């Protein structure tokens, strides 16, 4: 009764017609079906933020969404932000400010920060900290991640 269903999902601009079981999580679809392992699986219940992606431009936990719900939607993952040698401004800033150590939380941090930057003015470091509070990092103590996001905000203010 719950066989597979045909869906069409756009991921980082490419369209994938695929067949999925209804219970398949979006994050497992990205990693296992499409082989896009940039999106990480941490807690699998919406607490750690490691699996954050953009769904039609808005950040969402890929462990709290079913792949079948992404039918007809457009997903952006960390692979879509840039590539080695061609990183985007936020990725460059993470690099410059040493905003990662082990890198496990980084894809989720980048996707969350991408959405924060498009929705909030992030006038203070407290605003950035509150915005990132749903993403856990066990290495950095967060300080350098906040600095990396701050630098992008400041650069945008300087050159609107």
């Amino acid at each position, binding site marked *: *009764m719950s066989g597979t269903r045909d869906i069409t999902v756009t991921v980082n601009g490419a369209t994938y017609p695929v067949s999925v079981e209804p*219970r398949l999580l979006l994050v497992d679809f990205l990693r296992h079906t499409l082989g896009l392992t940039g999106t990480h699986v941490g807690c699998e219940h919406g607490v750690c933020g490691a699996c954050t992606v953009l769904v039609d431009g808005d*950040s969402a*936990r890929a*462990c*709290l969404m079913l792949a079948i*719900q992404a039918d007809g939607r457009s997903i952006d993952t960390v692979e879509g932000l840039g590539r080695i040698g061609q990183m985007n401004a936020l990725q460059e800033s993470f690099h410059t400010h040493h905003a990662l150590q082990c890198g496990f939380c980084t894809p989720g941090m980048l996707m969350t920060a991408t959405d924060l930057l498009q929705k909030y003015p992030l006038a203070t470091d407290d605003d950035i900290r509150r*915005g990132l*509070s749903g993403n856990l990092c066990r290495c950095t103590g967060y300080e350098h991640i906040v600095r990396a996001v701050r630098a992008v905000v400041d650069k945008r203010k300087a050159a609107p």
Partner: protein
Amino acid sequence: MKPPVFDYIAATSTDMAVAALAAAGGEAKIIAGGQSLMPMLSFRLLRPSLLVDINRIPGLAYIEEADTCLRIGALTRHFQIETSPVIARHLPVLSAAMTHVAHLAIRNRGTIGGSLSHGDPAAELPMIAVLLDATLHIESVSGQRAVRAQDFFLDALTVDLDSAEVLAEIILPKLPPNTGWGFEEIARRHGDFAIAAVAATLTVSDGSIRQARIALTGVGPTPVRAAAAETLLIGHALENKLVESVARAVRAAIAPEDDLHASADYRRHLAGVLTDRALHAAWRRAQGEP
């Protein structure tokens, strides 16, 4: 940590959704934002035979202004409520509460109907619904009914909603003129569920309080209206002695429990402290201060 097997329907109308619920005979669950349901599926605390997805029903996400109230569609996302100018104008206490609801990625997906139907004992929206005397419109194949928020929350994660019913609309009366509000929450980390939170409104004329409302969350199985404490405020100006007795009445009105995050005594203590802060903020705002 993977959901169990279930069948899935993406409903395209409320009629289709309630028909699917009725046909499943109590074995189906609605999925809206999924921000509470998905973890419960992954932990296998729930094993529905069918998920009825209401995300694709057109016209179920809206914020409409009427003369005396705002009507909010059940599928309205937290982020829409957080950033709505209409809500900021007429129900600023709700706008303030929304900034404490989880994190952006969750507010992008989570819905007001989902939060109220889930009935988490430490969530902000159930408390605001009780504070503002919301009316909830519920639909099923047998028709429609309306429930007051006060009567909707029965126990922890238990609400007055049958397995064949769907919450469709939330009606929130606008705050009266000369009303100030306060919202105070303590959580271990920003965006976490409240250890305790207090919301209050005070309607003031000629220097004395005409209407007072105080609601709490995180201090029992359901959100609480502190009716006896509210009564103490009527006819008076807010001053410290009065606030002390109101805070005592609030502490007496709740029965918090110990858990991993806080002891019952600490929650009771916080309820008083946050009542004090929320009432002072409401009083200041009722005088026109920001």
